[in-house]
């Protein structure tokens, strides 16, 4: 636990001392603010469904940029060797990096909560879908962060890590489309791998344990693969 905290503090400093984090947050807020304003004036309804989908698509692009350096940079600079030859366990390294990236994503989500506050001040929204939407976004962000971390552990090139993680995320987002072309039971299997299929209920106000379990499974698999990339060969 002590090592986890030490590594987490180091990662938080690395993230928040980098101009990349501020650029990402600024661009995210700008695009989300634009979407929220547009939706509000076009639809004139007190809901955030479209905002949640907009945020989800942005996360597909942004999260890999946040996670690309986590392990790839350590591998390229050789500092991974220092970490792995210290009395530190792989799980502590992986969890600290995962938690640090979630901190930034959590900050971005909490800043998006301003949209909900605006709705609450000027209208009477249905809060259920708003809460579930934010929960869904948090789970999606965490799943994408776990995927990004695993990919970052497989290479020493940050650009490769970002592009591959982006590709995996986008493929999983839209993989349900191909399900329509496949015979039973493959159509069900492929559809159940889809990020959008499991995110949509959250965004529209329905929380199913199966969706929750899916995201937790993706997170777990991502973290296990990340640990595997650090395993001594």
């Amino acid at each position, binding site marked *: 636990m*002590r*090592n986890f905290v*030490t*590594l987490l503090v*180091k990662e938080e400093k*690395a993230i928040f*001392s980098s101009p990349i984090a501020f650029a990402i947050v600024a661009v995210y807020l700008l695009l989300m603010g634009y979407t929220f304003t547009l939706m509000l004036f076009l639809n004139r309804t007190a809901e955030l469904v479209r905002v949640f989908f907009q945020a989800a698509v942005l996360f597909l692009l942004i999260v890999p940029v946040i996670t690309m350096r986590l392990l790839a940079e350590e591998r390229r*600079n*050789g*500092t991974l*060797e*220092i*970490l*792995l*030859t*210290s*009395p*530190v*366990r792989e799980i502590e390294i992986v969890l600290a990096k995962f938690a640090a990236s979630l901190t930034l994503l959590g900050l971005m989500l909490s800043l998006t909560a301003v949209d909900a506050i605006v709705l609450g001040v000027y209208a009477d929204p249905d809060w259920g879908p708003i809460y579930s939407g934010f929960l869904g976004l948090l789970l999606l962000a965490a799943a994408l962060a776990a995927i990004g971390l695993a990919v970052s552990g497989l290479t020493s090139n940050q650009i490769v890590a970002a592009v591959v993680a982006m590709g995996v995320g986008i493929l999983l987002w839209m993989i349900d489309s191909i399900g329509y072309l496949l015979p039973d039971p493959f159509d069900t299997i492929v559809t159940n791998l889809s990020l959008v299929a499991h995110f949509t209920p959250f965004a529209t106000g329905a929380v199913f344990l199966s969706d929750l379990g899916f995201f937790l499974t993706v997170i777990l698999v991502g973290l296990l693969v990340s640990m595997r990339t650090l395993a*001594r*060969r």
Partner: protein
Amino acid sequence: MSAVIVAEQLTKWYGPRLAVDHVSFTVGAGEIMGLLGPNGSGKTTILRIFTGYLRPSSGTARIAGLDVVADAPAARRRVGYVPEDAPLYLGMGVREFLIFMGRLKGLTRASLGAAVDAATERLRLGPMRTAQIGRLSRGYRQRVAIAQALLGDPPLLILDEPTNGLDPRQIIEMRELIRSLGGERTIVVTSHILGEIQRVADRVAILLAGQLLGVHAVRASREGGRLRLRIRGEEERVSACLAGVPGVAAVRLESQRGSSPPVYLVDAEHPSVAEAVAGAVITAGFGLLSLESMPVDLEALFLKLTGDRAEAGG
């Protein structure tokens, strides 16, 4: 001398490539062992196995009796490691980095500050303690890397090519530092430069293509070496005179060609013996025609061993 490091039939395969081939050696407490070999000879792989970064394909590696695979965390606590090119977190300050590493090495809050201060002082990093590592010179970065390795006072220090990329002055400083660290702890140091190993190590293990060609003592060559003298005078009296000089371990007649004065080879125990030998020869009234200092030639030894292996292979 109890062995701090024991390698038994250590073997490492990278896929189909054999990087370390059944290597066995021991390093005693307080000893400085040099691993010498050309690039790709398996030096770094052996070090990485001992630091726990790599697993051996077969064979065992033990540090202070602890198996580096079965007792990995405990074994790692006994090693201070400086990888090649001293990788560091360039965005961190020197003290910040040392505190970070100290925490990872399990130093308690009470002992952390004192340990960091001691390492900072030992490596003469005081003026740089608040400097960002990325702004330091190569020599200072190497010192920071060694300072982190000393945290927790491990009995074993592993240094991979510690003089790489340093300027001549920094190389001399690094050499002195390594020698000053020896004795109080066991050190394993690698280099592909013969002279570096010869100057710092007590023994050297020569590696080629993953195989250990031999382990040789170099302390004697560094501290004394061999003198080659051409002296005019009666052979028996000259030999007796030379053998009587304090610090002379052995005297041998090398050659005598025709009427030219013979050449004597004198094994000296320390460098100052040369002066004493010259004084004794002159005082005794012999004609000292030449005196050369010939340290044991590690280069020749290396070439011989690697040449033998090449012949055996070819």
